[in-house]
């Protein structure tokens, strides 16, 4: 189940339900995941539709053995902080 809290935000994986088909999954998930929080959209995706890496491969696949700091987009963190600050203060940046 993927839940979108606000329009324009990403759908975020919130968990899974047992169900025989997408409609039933939706009906059961609505109460599991939207009882209290906000939601404007809910996606149902069958688990087998997700092509996923294995946990035991994480080290080899995703962490750098060698120093490659130059590839990390650190500058963007400032932009992200500016965006959060502006949101907190009720302003928004124009879309990139």
């Amino acid at each position: 189940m993927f839940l979108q809290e606000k329009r324009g935000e990403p759908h975020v994986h919130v968990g899974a339900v047992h169900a025989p088909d997408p409609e039933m999954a939706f009906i059961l998930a609505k109460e599991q995941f939207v009882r209290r929080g906000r939601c404007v959209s809910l996606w149902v995706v069958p688990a087998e539709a997700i092509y996923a890496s294995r946990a035991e491969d994480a080290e080899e696949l995703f962490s750098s053995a060698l120093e490659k700091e130059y590839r990390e987009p650190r500058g963007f963190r400032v932009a992200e902080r500016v965006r959060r600050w502006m949101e907190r203060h009720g302003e928004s940046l124009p879309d990139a």
Partner: protein
Amino acid sequence: MGNPSQMPEPLREAVGSLLLAMADDEVLLGHRDSEWVGHAPILEADIAIASIAQDEIGHAILWYSLLQELGWPDPDRMAYFRDPPEFRNATLVELPRGDWAFTAVRQFLFDFAEKVRLEALMASAWAPLAEAAAKVRREETYHLMHSRAWIARLGDATEESHRRMQAALDLAWPHALGLFEPAPGEALRVAEGIQPPEVELRARWEAEVRPILEAASLVIPEAEPIYGGRTGRHTEHLASLLADFQMVARSGLGETW
């Protein structure tokens, strides 16, 4: 006609009698649904039926609160300190929870009855009722999705599911027709534009539920409505339901929580 104190006495009685029927239906169905907590077929279904139970009890509080505005006692007193003959619910909602098939069928028949009733009451001449009906109607969208889905799936899934659903429908149908037993004062309510006649609501309801039941291979029984609930005549199941539902409030512990 917004202010209840300006309502003539016979109309106040007539509107109260409708609200009482609606509130009692909701609170008892909510209680029956809540009996599934910890027992539903799967965890997800358990959570969904528990939420629906809470929704129904929330609707009951809303109708009891409107009653209170009309001069009836407060919602807690209404729910916990009346005896079976004082309840005006249709007998459908007092029947034991049965198996999951019965719960699904009863909820389906009730949800659609509530839908047609609310949609009619959204045009009621008494503004507080029209506004409350519009609010509750929004919450019914999910209930309708939920009940329709169970009917569609269990109606003809397997030989056993079909057999159980058909048995549930045979039992529930005449009691569900009792949801449209006119509560006392109907003629006055209709004349004053509070509600359309129950017979009209029943026709709208049948037009909605029949095709869904038939598409799920279920046969609608030929049966006379079971009336009585709206005048306080109930099955033997109401007393045991109330004994359970009212036990804590009547123990006196409520005063010191």
